[in-house]
């Protein structure tokens, strides 16, 4: 395995353009086993899941500025607006500054500042009461991705609860499952070297993901790859595409099946690859026979001649053509099957494990800290995921089905909810239902850095230290350019806050679980650093913040003895596993329901400065989006007598909100759109409290049938001028 460090790559190109006026980059370009330590304290950004490497400039114990750390190939030597604004989280006057216990009714906003001991005693007592009455399965532990999430999860498991609920079923569960079922793994896409890129439902220039966003710019702008983009909205990504098609929402699968039909009927697929590596090609050919571009035109609204031409161009680009998978895939109830169609299209052009194609992820080796194991939970999961979604990840759970069961009290009551780094009231569709679920709880504890809406309705709020104030476990970032990063403490906590590990330990002590948490963060990262592919791993990480591989490695799985991690050991175009589980073994298209007259499909999306609900309160980001509004096609708006700036009432079966309208040409006439992160209930988020509206209020409960992933584009809304 290639273990040269990324530094050689810095010298080879990439950052060279900006390095000339910057001697500290030049000095690194010489390569060698260990580069000189960078300026600033290296750490790892936490404003989104990308884990970009950062250099923190500290003056007089205050973080003054965050700069990109060019040593991490995955973050491509850059730091986005969100990452730059992270300092403001630390010094945000709205931050949680000490533990709080609710003093009035839930949501009334009366809080009692308490000591950590009192907060722990109180929460542990309530958790014990729940356990005595309902068993450990009477507790729910939900969390979002983060380096310290492991400690929170472990506390839930050590407590004996089967109900550990993570974020994927609100985000990327369906795309991950679809690629896993097909390839046995979830690959990355080599956008830097691709020659033909089709992107649908991934607005990659606004919802920034490293390195994909940067590589797409490189691939499209510098290396002149062709870029085709499908989206009901005219986004920044659309503005950079060679061709943009405002596809009818929910019909992507028809477009993909037609592409497959053209490629197979014209024998443009990679025959050698398909013969050698795939299973079920004959059935696939039969399956797509009727899926002509003319048929797809009727479904998608994209002209048949364009679909046919794109299919030909795509196949002719061969292994340098990719239909990009995207990340958030919580759209439709058939999302899994649509992603399967994508995966199959990619497979038949033979782009697997080739430069410019899909590349299975590599990882940087890392050690594990061994802790005392606990017993498996005795009860089964409350979301009954093993029964309802046998192929889905039982360790992550399925959010919406879980909420349904908890609301019904089936198969057993769940009465306490612990939440880490997550704001279910804004992240989960149908805020009204989530509120009802919260009202049904005897106890709710929230760990967060700010008073989110969910925290506002909690019983105890544990203030976590900010990422710049704590040291987290070492995290491996798999990919084409894999890296391992350390998030190390940059400044001392400025308030009475603690890292999640210490919060877990404080609770564990009072729950009689101390033995399982008998370690420090230093012991944990020491064990992890031991296996890193560098000398003196821990010391190296503290100095550089990242260990990474220099160059992509293509073709490791393209050898005669390689077996894909699927039942057949091949790429499964036809999946017996799906058939056995009662699902379509090949992706079968069903036309999505269309909005009835006078209603619009609500679609979601992001902006580069505002991707997560948690970011809306940061002034440097907020000033670019002071308020969200409802995008409505200008023609429709005129028909309804609505002008930009008018207040409108938007309603679905889940709820009603009021916000300003934006009459714009940049959206299809049958859709409306609003930005996420506004209309907060918590008055401690002053910039966005009651400003604009929250999409979660409107979104209805629907999920993908195979993965249980939330389906957030299945809501039709009515819009009237107030």
């Amino acid at each position: 395995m290639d273990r040269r460090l990324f530094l050689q790559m810095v010298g080879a190109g990439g950052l060279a353009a900006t390095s000339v006026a910057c001697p500290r980059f030049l000095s690194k370009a010489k390569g060698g086993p260990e580069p000189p330590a960078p300026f600033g304290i290296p750490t790892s950004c936490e404003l989104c899941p990308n884990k970009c490497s950062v250099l923190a400039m500290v003056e007089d114990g205050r973080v003054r500025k965050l700069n990109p750390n060019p040593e991490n190939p995955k973050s491509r030597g850059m730091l986005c607006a969100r990452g730059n604004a992270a300092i403001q989280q630390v010094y945000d006057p709205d931050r949680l500054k000490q533990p709080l216990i609710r003093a009035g009714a839930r949501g009334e906003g009366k809080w009692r500042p308490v000591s950590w001991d009192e907060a722990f005693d109180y929460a542990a007592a309530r958790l014990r009461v729940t356990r005595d009455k309902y068993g450990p399965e009477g507790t729910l532990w939900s969390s979002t991705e983060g380096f310290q999430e492991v400690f929170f999860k472990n506390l839930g498991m050590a407590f004996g609860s089967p109900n550990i609920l993570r974020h994927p079923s609100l985000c990327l569960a369906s795309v991950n499952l679809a690629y896993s079922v097909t390839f046995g793994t979830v690959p990355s896409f080599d956008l830097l070297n691709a020659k033909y890129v089709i992107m649908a439902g991934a607005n990659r220039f606004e919802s920034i993901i490293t390195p994909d966003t940067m590589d797409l710019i490189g691939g499209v702008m510098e290396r002149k790859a062709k870029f085709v983009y499908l989206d009901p909205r005219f986004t920044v990504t659309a503005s950079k595409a060679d061709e943009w098609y405002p596809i009818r929402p929910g019909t992507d699968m028809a477009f993909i099946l037609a592409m497959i039909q053209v490629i197979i009927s014209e024998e443009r697929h990679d025959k050698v690859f398909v013969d050698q590596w795939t299973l079920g090609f004959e059935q696939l050919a039969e399956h797509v026979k009727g899926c002509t571009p003319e048929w797809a035109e009727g479904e998608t609204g994209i002209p048949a001649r364009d679909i046919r031409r794109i299919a030909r161009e795509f196949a002719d680009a061969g292994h340098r053509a990719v239909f990009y998978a995207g990340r958030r895939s919580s759209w439709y109830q058939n999302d899994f099957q649509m992603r399967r169609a994508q995966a199959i299209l990619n497979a038949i052009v033979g782009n697997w494990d080739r430069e410019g194609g899909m590349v299975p992820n590599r990882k940087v080796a890392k050690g594990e800290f061994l802790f005392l194991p606990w017993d498996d939970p005795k009860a089964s999961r409350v979301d009954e995921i093993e029964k309802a979604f046998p192929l889905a990840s039982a360790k992550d759970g399925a959010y919406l089905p879980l909420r349904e069961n908890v609301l019904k009290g089936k198969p057993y009551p769940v009465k306490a909810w612990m939440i880490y780094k997550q704001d279910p009231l804004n992240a989960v569709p149908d805020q009204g239902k989530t509120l009802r679920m919260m009202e049904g709880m005897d106890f709710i504890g929230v760990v967060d850095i700010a008073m989110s809406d969910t925290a506002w309705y909690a019983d105890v709020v544990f203030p976590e230290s900010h990422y710049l104030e704590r040291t987290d476990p070492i995290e491996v970032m798999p990919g084409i350019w894999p890296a391992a990063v350390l998030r190390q403490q940059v400044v001392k906590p400025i308030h009475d806050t603690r890292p999640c590990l210490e919060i877990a330990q404080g609770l564990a002590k009072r729950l009689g679980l101390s033995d399982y948490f008998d370690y420090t963060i230093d012991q944990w990262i020491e064990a992890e650093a031991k296996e890193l592919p560098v000398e003196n791993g821990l010391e190296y990480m503290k100095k550089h913040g990242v260990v990474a591989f220099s160059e992509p490695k293509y073709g490791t799985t393209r050898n005669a003895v390689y077996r894909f991690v699927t039942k057949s050991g091949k790429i499964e175009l036809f999946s017996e596993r799906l058939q056995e589980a009662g699902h379509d073994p090949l992706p079968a298209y069903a036309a999505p329901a269309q909005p009835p007259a006078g209603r619009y499909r609500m679609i979601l999306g992001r902006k580069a400065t505002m991707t997560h609900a948690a970011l809306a309160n940061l002034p440097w980001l907020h000033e670019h989006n002071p308020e969200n509004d409802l995008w409505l096609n200008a023609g429709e708006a005129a028909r309804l007598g609505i002008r930009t700036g008018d207040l409108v009432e938007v309603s679905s079966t889940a709820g009603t909100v009021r916000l300003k309208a934006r009459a714009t040409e940049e959206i299809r006439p049958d859709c409306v759109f609003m930005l996420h992160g506004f209309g907060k209930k918590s008055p401690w988020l002053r910039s966005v409290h009651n400003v604009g509206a929250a999409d979660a209020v409107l979104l209805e409960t629907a999920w993908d049938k195979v993965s249980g992933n939330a389906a957030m584009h299945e809501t039709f809304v009515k819009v009237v001028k107030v």
Partner: protein
Amino acid sequence: MPKNPTRRYIMVLDSRKCIDCKACVVACKAENRVPLGRFRNWINAEREGAFPRLRASFDPEQCHHCENPSCVRVCPTGASWQREDGIVMVREADCIGCKYCMVACPYGARFFNEETKVVDKCTFCAHRVDRGEVPACVETCPSRVRTFGDAADPKSPVHALLEGRRYRVLKPQTGNGPQLYYLL
């Protein structure tokens, strides 16, 4: 291009690559403590057309660090001045806040800073440049729109870019000699 200085800092911008992500704007805010609602750099967004024939373009802009800066000429106190390397600066101690320079600037690149009570604008992060670093906006840019360098140094990447590509400057007719080069 300037004639025969020993050093002449300029910026070359490849706007096609700009994704309007505001990383440069926020990085500048953080680096230079620019007050809320005020900006030393910004992105001009142009959107036009009717559905579905639409177009959008993004041009980052800031002080052009002109060859013959009109702001410097009109400043009554000498607070606006130009370094030998071309960077146009405002000396806070000498600024009386008369705002003549704001009127004189053809690019609207200057603002009155209510916190410091003086006129404020992009300095090309002169403090960073003097340490051998690039401006904060250049360093942070995710899509590498910006290239900062020394036009007098043939080895500087800005040189290669301007040799190899066609470019334009904004409002050349003012005679100010702007030094932000936009690649075509």
